[in-house]
């Protein structure tokens, strides 16, 4: 996995997964920089972890339960006040389905 340079197609694929619109010069820069960072972090492949479980959490918390009580919550006005666009107390976006 190391010493492999990402292709521009891979950069585009990951950018689309992440919903990041990149400019042409950014694509090239990402390709260079991510390849170099991946090169460095690929060293981890050399560690023998065959008998090691992945970390799930670092403290020993058990399930956190609470009573199913009704509490006050934020008002709709407060929640919506930062919305770029809204209508009738709902976030407004472009239609996804025609």
């Amino acid at each position, binding site marked *: 996995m190391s010493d492999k340079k990402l292709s521009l197609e891979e*950069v585009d694929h990951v*950018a689309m997964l992440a919903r990041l619109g990149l400019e042409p010069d950014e694509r090239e820069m990402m390709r260079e920089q991510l390849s170099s960072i991946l090169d460095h972090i690929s060293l981890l492949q050399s560690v023998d972890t065959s008998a090691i479980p992945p970390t799930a959490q*670092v403290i020993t*918390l058990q399930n956190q339960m609470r009573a199913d009580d009704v509490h006050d919550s934020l008002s709709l006005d407060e929640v919506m006040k930062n919305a770029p666009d809204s209508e009738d107390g709902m976030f407004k976006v472009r239609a996804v389905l025609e």
Partner: protein
Amino acid sequence: MSELINRSAVELRDLLDNGEISAVDVLDAHLARVEAVEASVNAFITITDDVARAQAQAADQRIKNGTAGPMTGIPVGLKDILCTTDAPTTAGSKLLEGYRSPYDATVVKMLREQDALFIGKANTDEFAMGSSTEHSAYQFTSNPWKLDHVPGGSSGGSAAAVSAQEVSVSLGSDTGGSIRQPAGFCGVVGLKPTYGRVSRFGLIAFASSLDQIGPFARSVEDAALLLGAISGKDPNDATSVDTAIPDYRATLGGDLTGVRVGVAEEYQIDGMDSRVEESVKQAIGELEKLGAEIVPISLPHTEHALATYYIIAPAEASANLARFDGVKYGMSLAQDNLLDTYLQTRGKGFGPEVKRRIMLGTYALSSGYYDAYYVQAQKVRTLIKRDFDEAFQNVDVIAAPTSPTVSFQRGARSADPMQMYLSDVFTIPANMAGIPGIAVPCGFADGLPVSLQFMGRAFDEATVLRVAHAYEQNTEWHTSNPPLDAQISTAS
């Protein structure tokens, strides 16, 4: 009243409680300091003097009524990634310019309920991603010791504001060193508590298995004071832990007889500044003089911590930052269809470092790479944590450098992300294991502070603070202030 900026928070507490000064006096002294130095330091994105003025009046009333808390009337800086209802919260990002949170972070609420004085929202690398605060979309913050040097990061504004005496104490957040490293660069105390000690509700999330909020101060005792004020279980943060909170200030004092201090060979690396190495060596000698037993230990997986971090943290960040979609809040660059709105908003709204990390994290989690990168990193994380578990069978704290170098000049590490990431090589392991770590001043190199780090067992901040306090009280490093006035008068 200008001498009030030289007082520690605990000294101010006594003066306020004895009625010798008022909270309005404290506020005026600190706002005058902000007025004098902030144009050179640029620690704050937003100054909230109106908020602080109302709090000072309420604080004086509270003191008169006998209902003052530990933080009543104490000037505080808040990293601008902590949500506040009465000031914008930007996370250092253009994407959140003008964002006004409908709720306070729990730590903000706890301080607000005591009428601490909120002086301002401190600069940060965008979404806390960086080690120099140069990735803020708003401004560069200067290191008060040398104005053309960086304050460290990501909580660089919080560190610089305390160092420059604009506030007594401040809050930052630490995901891979973002409290301890800037504290070290600015010559102040910075504490990352145990994961779960302090509620993260209202801290804009970066990497949720690593993030923790903690204090900056000019003395260990002040850090202990602020830690006590923000610790505890919060129903709004399911990862906060319901465990006893010691009176941290009361545990300070005494020598180090019987305390076992671990020193790991893995914390000496190639490329380390020899002056840092020398200062830390001398500090360990000092601990021995104070009665501590120095125990050589090994943390064999330390060398893998950085790579592990740069998989896990970006992976979590890529998921956490999916919420910035231009629909619910923040910047929105509306296009003809929803997908293009996402692409444009996120492509233009995020800065280069944030995009780099989102890309890295998305890649590590993507089909075909998940096991090789993410799962492997979580397994190595287990090994890193086990190293600490084993070490703490034989020692009470571990002493190490906070950072391999002192502060660097602005721009010096901007071209190469990997070079910047190396700043955090000694702070990342504590986040990986969830354990507490504190940075305290331990020397100077060419007028720039050197910093010593103590790490301790999970939820044993008391021992970490006690050892740091004993070291601090027997050395002079914490007593000097940056030559800020001289630098400002030379520049003007």
